């Protein structure tokens, strides 16, 4: 008799545990307000990324097309993957001295691991992260970016 009681108890307890699980899924089924899906490409306009989000490295320019990069090459040394390459040139300043400045700040997005060492190590805060995250392109060559805009110059007062 005891064994039959145990048998039935086992069956009923098992069914009860299953019902508890069904309660969880069932309650979610009947409460569509808890749906977490974000319809991504449709909500693109409303999408706000966090300020610190590491999208890609950019070089902020002001309205006069000036940047802060002196071409010192510290970011190039600090980059673990060799995704930054700086091609510098010598220019003559107004008072006639020769000075080193960047020609091209090449940034290979395809090799970047977003470790933020370049941004953090830059002595003149010339680099920053943008919140752009849609990096997909059809051609790998497009992932090699030149960060300084054409015709840009070093900001006054940055050494």
């Amino acid at each position, binding site marked *: 008799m005891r064994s039959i009681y145990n048998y039935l108890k086992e069956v009923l307890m098992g069914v009860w*545990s299953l019902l508890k*699980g069904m309660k969880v899924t069932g309650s979610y089924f009947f409460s569509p307000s808890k749906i977490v899906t974000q319809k991504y490409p449709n909500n693109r306009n409303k999408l706000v990324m966090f300020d*610190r989000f590491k999208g890609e490295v950019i070089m902020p320019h002001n309205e006069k097309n000036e940047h802060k990069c002196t071409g010192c090459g510290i970011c190039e040394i*600090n980059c*673990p993957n060799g995704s930054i390459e700086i091609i510098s040139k010598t220019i003559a300043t107004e008072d006639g001295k020769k000075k080193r400045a960047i020609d091209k700040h090449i940034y290979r997005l395809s090799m970047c691991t977003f470790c*933020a060492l370049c941004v953090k190590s830059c002595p003149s805060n010339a680099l920053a992260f943008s919140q752009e995250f849609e990096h997909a392109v059809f051609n790998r060559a497009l992932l090699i970016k030149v960060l300084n805009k054409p015709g840009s110059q070093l900001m006054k007062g940055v050494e």
Partner: protein
Amino acid sequence: MEEQVKTTGINEQEEYVINMGPQHPSTHGVLRLVVSLKGEIVKNVEPHVGYIHRGIEKMCESITYPQIIHLTDRMDYLSAHINNEAVCLNVEKALEIEIPDRVKVIRTIMAELTRIQSHQLFWATFGMDLGGLTCFFYGLRDRERILDIWEETCGSRMIVSYSCPGGLMYDIHPNFQKRVKDFIKYFRKTLPEYDQLLTGNVIFRERTMGIGKLSLEDAVSFGVTGPVGRAAGFSCDVRKYEPYSAYDRVKFNEVLFTEGDTYHRYLVRMEEMRESMNIIDQLIDNIPEGQYAVKMKPVIKLPEGEYYQRVETARGELGVYIVSDGNKNPFRIKFRSPNFVNLAALNMMSKGFKIADLVAISGSLDLIIPDIDR
């Protein structure tokens, strides 16, 4: 000397050999298990690894210490922050710098968040391995909240790279404390649902109880650590026996069971999530003021010598062994990854069980393949 290299002799006539992986839904990546079967019963499991071997140890020999951090993220990507912390602690120990309390507390909170999200993902994938697909979505849904907290503070969602030698990359975001508290409040409500859906479920208990037993003796001998070891009664929590960061100032229990089967490995993780929440509760309101990083020299050179640092990741004991010759690059760096050592016990644990149990056992080891391969 006799040639020690031997090739496996699998008798095709007598054993039914199937290849689980490298592309198999339940090997969580590119692990390949060569399974010898007799009917449905597993006779032998031979793990083949190396499909994503990237040579991180070799790469580390040619880069500087701050640059190593971003590579450690990519070993055990679910314990990314704890991996960072291990290298940072080791470098800081070697340089004998005292880091501010604020850093210690923030690192501890981040590490515990890491543990929670890793166990959430474990719960999700373990449920999926056993056929309960809904678990996967619930686990990931809740994990997303932690990832959002990280995204706000660290800038990345999973591969955080938040620690650096001497402190942290940035200070915590002003919203950090509020969001963490919100999450803890939310997750305390959601965790019982996990129990209702899986822990108490009669099918789940039948599937996992008594499966893949590992005795305490074997656990120690195989060196399995983390939840796998603790389920077998092996007290191997580094946070307890060699406290680092702020673990010496918080109260928490080491979750220990003695059965050592799949169910208890699962249970250890469920309990650890609760313990982690307790740790965060103790720390989140008491983050001391101060600097978030110590000013370091631009080029970090470790004094000549050998340094070993172990930390408790979500999967077990991670050891970082640095041999330095005084240069800015490590002479030799070795990561003692918990998954690699835990994998060795898989064969012993799954012998004699069915192929469905093999999936459950390898799921309960919670293997992360990049950590095995490195």
